[in-house]
């Protein structure tokens, strides 16, 4: 061990931390690891159990690790030893040599500017062409973000497809509904809230939107798209669980706290001849968070 890098001045190569019990401790580490590994095999054969598997595996790995690391720390030469750092920058001679070699090879390329430019053009064209298959990854968004599957006269159904009758929801009650035929549709998901027995006007122009006190709002939060699931019926507010945006139901789900920038779109409702709750039309604005082409 005295060959190789010299010791730091004043230090001896004797592992100064040699303790009498060290070898025994390392040996114990290896033995524990062996037993634990055997235990692991037996445990697996018997059916396994997650907590025991984790503990036994930890003992195996930890025992081996403790042994090897302890061996290195206490029994192997720790020096400290010294070694020189060569300067990382190349010498002027080395750089010159490189430059000469490189120029020898690139001289011809350098002279033929026209060919070089043509090659560059071809390579660029290839690069651009190779980007085109990326277009196959998905469809053109078009204006699909501006519509949902609600249509005029579509009945509101619950997640099982059962339509909602006018007497189905008590005042203070809420249900998640979808247009008939699209139960479970992510962008059409709508909150149906019964705030009273009488129609409620949330904003001017929406006088006919809430028959029998039913209000319908898009469940897709205008902040980041989470389902706005928390209805506080005493304060008549909707709370989004993701980032705590708070919406005032009676004022058309106007945001009153939190990061949501716009009100939840309201779905205009009416009752059909049989007393089912149906939509007058699709939402009058795109639902959910904003995107570039959402004016």
């Amino acid at each position, binding site marked *: 061990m005295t060959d190789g890098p010299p010791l730091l001045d004043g230090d001896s190569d004797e592992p100064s931390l040699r303790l009498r019990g060290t070898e025994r401790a390392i040996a114990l580490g290896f033995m524990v690891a062996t037993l634990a590994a055997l235990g692991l095999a037996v445990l*697996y054969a018997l059916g396994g159990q*997650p907590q025991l598997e984790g503990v036994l595996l930890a003992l195996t790995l930890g025992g081996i690790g403790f042994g*090897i690391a302890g061996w290195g720390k206490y029994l192997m030469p720790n020096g400290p030893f010294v070694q020189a*750092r060569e300067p990382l920058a190349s010498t002027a001679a080395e750089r010159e040599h490189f430059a000469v070699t490189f120029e020898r090879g690139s001289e011809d390329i350098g002279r033929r500017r026209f060919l070089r430019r043509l090659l560059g053009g071809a390579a660029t064209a290839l690069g651009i062409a190779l980007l085109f298959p990326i277009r196959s990854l998905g469809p053109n968004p078009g204006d699909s973000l501006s519509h949902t599957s609600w249509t005029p006269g579509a009945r509101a159904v619950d997640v099982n497809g059962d339509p909602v009758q006018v007497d189905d929801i008590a005042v203070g009650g809420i249900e998640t509904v979808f247009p008939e035929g699209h139960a479970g549709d992510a962008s059409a998901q709508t909150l149906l809230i019964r705030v009273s027995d009488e129609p409620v006007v949330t904003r001017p122009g929406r006088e006919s939107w809430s028959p029998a006190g039913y209000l319908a709002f898009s469940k897709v939060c205008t902040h980041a798209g989470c389902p706005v699931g928390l209805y506080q019926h005493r304060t008549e507010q909707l709370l989004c669980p993701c*980032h705590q945006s708070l919406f005032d139901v009676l004022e058309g789900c106007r945001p009153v706290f939190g990061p*949501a920038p716009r009100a939840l779109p309201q779905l205009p409702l009416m009752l059909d001849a049989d007393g089912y709750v149906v939509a007058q039309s699709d939402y009058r604005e795109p639902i959910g968070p*904003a995107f570039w082409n959402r004016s």
Partner: protein
Amino acid sequence: MSDAPEPSGGEPVRHGPGWRTARWFDDRLHASDFARRSLDKIFPDHWSFMLGEIAMYSFVVLLVTGLYLTFFYVPSLSPVIYHGSYAPLRGLSMSQAYESTINLSFQVRAGLVMRQMHHWAAIVFIGAMVVHLARVFFTGAFRRPRELNWVVGVSMLILGLVNGFAGYSLPDDLLSGTGLRIMYSILESIPIGGTWLAFLIFGGPYPSQDIISRLYVIHILIVPALIALLLGSHLAIMWHQKHTQFAGRGRTETNVVGVPMWPTFAAKSVGFMFMIAGVIAALGGLAQINPVWLYGPYQPYQVSSASQPDWYMGWLEGALRIFPNWEVHAFGHSIGNVFFPAVLLPGITFGLLFTWPWLEARFTKDRDTHHILDRPRNAPVRTAMGVAAIIFYSVLFAAGGTDIIATTVNASENSIVWFLRGAVFVLPVLGGYIAYRLCNELAAASAGRRRAPGVIVRGPGGGYEEAGPAAEPPAATGTGGD
């Protein structure tokens, strides 16, 4: 390896199989000299230089456990009815991705421990990278000639975040599915190309049928390959440039003081690897993580309260929660609210991280080569800015759990949001200032190492004053200690 020294005399000797194998390779690769230099290589082995190894060995655990998981997990959103052993899900419709994760957790022997070790290893991997980055930052190890390695390292951190998000989204459970919806909205919010980006990455409007299989390829192939490549470069550059070291007895800018690779450093490092794996194994068996069977399969109209992403995304979640509800609407176009906290903020964050070595070199006008590390106290401005940054992102992380804080301390969620909106600006400035002053005090105390720190005595008039030599702060430069 029973090597008998060659006696002088020319008698034939028997060599062991190990020696013969090594000789076989050497005859074909001319390896002896390189191997000797490698074995002789001196490594400074301060404990704070092992933080990167925690990350590296967690990555090894990720690869091993991850490989095992790929044999059981099915990356498909095709619906299937569950008929397995976990009663509360029996008969429910779910995706194959979710079902295979449930089966892995309930019916594959040792499957749950492997799954949990994999997830805990990811938590430790990213945590260790952050701690390692902090060590490198505060000691100025990113300075010339190590700017390149700094960039490689920050790239690995970003890739780790991406892969963590992709990985925990694979089970298609209610919690991670909520996060995917948020990610979709974030992509949508990007100006000009955001909608296209969302449609191309996801394969259509939300929810798409393709996202899980695409995330799977990203998670098991693309990103791990990139990380492995970058990790190899990271180690190779560090190997070639030699590790930095703290100032100390006998340590100069032109030497390396430490332990040889063979046998000491190899033993310590390999032993450390096993111990890190042991820690992860203990967590994997004793601490439950991501119990997706309790969250239920993802349905886009369901959500749970107290939904948070994994910790390393917490700062983004917090930014989303406390950012005011501003949105830009102009000329028929919109820039969605989430763009600012979830795209602009991380863009600035990583932009600053990447360019820091050059920014600091420009401000301190220090373009020298450094192999001796700074003590944080000797670089008060850098330390103060680092402390301020840590506090800033920690406040954002806390903001990611406003509802949990509200429940724990029985306060109004809304008051907490307002408090954090102020704290996110005030606390970093305060903390940075305190750190700056502390650095100056500590540097003054240790500049004269044999001098006792200032002793306070009470004078006859009742006032307090510092006895002994007055501690003057050194001229505040960006770097020091050379």
